[in-house]
């Protein structure tokens, strides 16, 4: 049980997040917070995917599709005008109970009524979960790479669908997405006045996902997932319902991706088809691999740093290529991720201090934490 270590890590990360915000604000570089916020949401997608790919050993090549489902459902339902709703009695009571929300018309002086942003967001999570069940149920009952194939196809389909659907804005996407109210006076939105608040919303969301995944992987469920990765037949013979666990993890990671996609959309105020692209899905997988596969921390750090640098334009027109190179370099030199060698050092150091636990064999052989 690593409860103490987890708590210390989360606390340190929280302090770091605060320090970065204060540093950016004091030095007058508030605009960094915008990319940091977006990078935090992306890191949450990568962490969710690492649970599926790294811990459970099931590959999804279509996670951008789930991000897009969350994003487009939030954007569409919170902007689609329900023209006659405000006139009827039912519409009025729905407005009163915040099932519907009204906002000023963009060009004109009337008001537009749509579904409340919070419900639009939840609908996105629900839809992503249902679609994940639909894809995962048949694919995950089989052994082998059927999920990779199915999700690859799914991702491509989502991309073509959003690109070709008029009410989803086709190539333009959907813009002027209203703010998502979180607390009184605080909303998930791109308004400059709420920039710092939104940085903390994103940091809070990502830290919650981190804590959730760290606790989950260090538990009976987490062991079951790693057992499936280690040997599916041994896991089954030990009483683990492998098909059910694989499906649950796939659905969970899809819902996390949709949640991050939805929040990102409210923050940016818009969504376009490029976020649903197949290359985005490949990037998510590359970041999981670069983080060391079965490492929630690695997924967080690599997902966050690489996305931030990419958003700052550090990679120029080689953007996609950089992700490929990072993947190749890490796979060639430290297949356990950038933190693998560090962990090996710690293990060796401990082994030297506690010789009782390490016989000659285990000293020679470097422990491989990742399969």
């Amino acid at each position, binding site marked *: 049980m690593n409860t103490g270590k987890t708590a210390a890590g989360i606390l340190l990360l929280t302090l770091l997040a605060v320090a970065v915000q204060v540093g950016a604000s004091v030095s007058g570089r508030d605009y960094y917070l915008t990319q940091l916020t977006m990078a935090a949401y992306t890191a949450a997608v990568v962490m969710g995917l690492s649970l599926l790919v790294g811990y459970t050993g099931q590959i999804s090549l279509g996670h951008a599709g789930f991000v897009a489902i969350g994003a487009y459902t939030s954007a569409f339902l919170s902007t689609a005008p329900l023209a006659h709703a405000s006139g009827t009695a039912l519409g009025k009571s729905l407005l009163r109970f915040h099932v519907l929300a009204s906002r000023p018309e963009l060009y004109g002086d009337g008001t537009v009524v749509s579904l409340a942003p919070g419900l639009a967001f939840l609908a996105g999570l629900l839809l992503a979960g249902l679609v994940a069940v639909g894809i995962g149920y048949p694919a995950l009952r089989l052994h082998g790479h059927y999920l990779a194939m199915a999700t690859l196809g799914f991702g491509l389909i989502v991309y073509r669908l959003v690109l070709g659907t008029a009410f989803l804005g086709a190539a333009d996407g959907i813009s002027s997405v209203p703010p998502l109210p979180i607390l009184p006076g605080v909303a998930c939105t791109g308004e400059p006045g709420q920039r710092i608040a939104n940085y903390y919303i994103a940091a809070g969301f990502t830290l919650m996902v981190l804590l959730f995944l760290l606790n989950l992987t260090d538990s*009976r469920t987490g062991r079951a997932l790693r057992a499936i990765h280690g040997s599916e*037949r041994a896991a089954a013979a030990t009483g683990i319902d492998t098909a059910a666990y694989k499906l649950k993890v796939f659905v969970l990671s899809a819902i996390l991706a949709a949640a991050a996609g939805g929040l990102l959309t409210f923050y940016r105020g818009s969504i376009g088809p490029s976020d649903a692209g197949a290359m985005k899905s490949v990037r998510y997988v590359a970041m999981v691999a670069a983080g060391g596969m079965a490492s929630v921390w690695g997924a967080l750090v690599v997902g966050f740093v690489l996305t931030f640098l990419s958003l700052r334009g550090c990679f120029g027109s080689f953007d996609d290529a950089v992700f490929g190179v990072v993947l190749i370099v890490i796979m060639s030199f430290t297949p356990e991720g950038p933190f693998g060698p560090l962990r090996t050092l710690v293990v060796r150091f401990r082994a030297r201090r506690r010789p009782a636990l390490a016989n000659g064999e285990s000293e020679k052989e470097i*422990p491989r934490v990742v399969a």
Partner: protein
Amino acid sequence: MSLLEVQGIARAFGGVQALQEVSFAVETGQIHAVIGPNGAGKTTLFNIISGLLRPHAGRITFLGRDITALPPHRISRAGIARTFQTLALFENMTVLENVMVGRHLRSHSGAVAAALRLPRQLHEEKRIREAALGYLSSVGLFSKAEAPVSALSFGQRRLVELARALATEPRLLLLDEPASGLNPRETDDLAQLIRRVRDDSVTVLLVEHDMSMVMDISDEILVLHYGRPIASGSPAEIRADPEVIAIYLGGEFTGAAC
């Protein structure tokens, strides 16, 4: 009522009839061995009993209940644990974690309890760890608990698998060639261990090539030859069976056992 009843099991791979008309019963509290030359269908039989393979004909009942069509995790839940001839350890985990997975069936905490670190879950996690350490001690690997499984010798890895299987608290334990790859001394220790497991009221069904060990520890032996049972009985009966001697064991057997 027998603990396990196998009736008329048949299984083919393509044109090869791996098992046909295999019937036998395993009685509670016994050590029951299945022997036969390579390719006799012993591992196929184990895979069918543990649910990893479906038989093409026949019926398997365990504690009076039909388990023929059940998936492996349900068979495990019914009380049958197994080890693998070619080891199937979770290489991505420590020795202790491997055995802790064996407690999966004996614990309940779900994802939400784990994520929220509910006191109930923390308590259960502690009990899982303690139980797993107990099973590791019983196979003599307590001191290796925190080591990654990749750091263990082959014989030790076999013992980790055994501890993992025992951790599910099975009524019936299937051992697929537990002595293969072990030196004579390790094999002796293993025989002791298997007897102790039986004395702890776990019935044992094993496939084994090491004749002296089989003759030494078994209460009942079934001989398979090209997928068909050709003899069954006590070690003394098998030793004296002319068909067994003629078809399969020959001189090697008398030399090893007597």
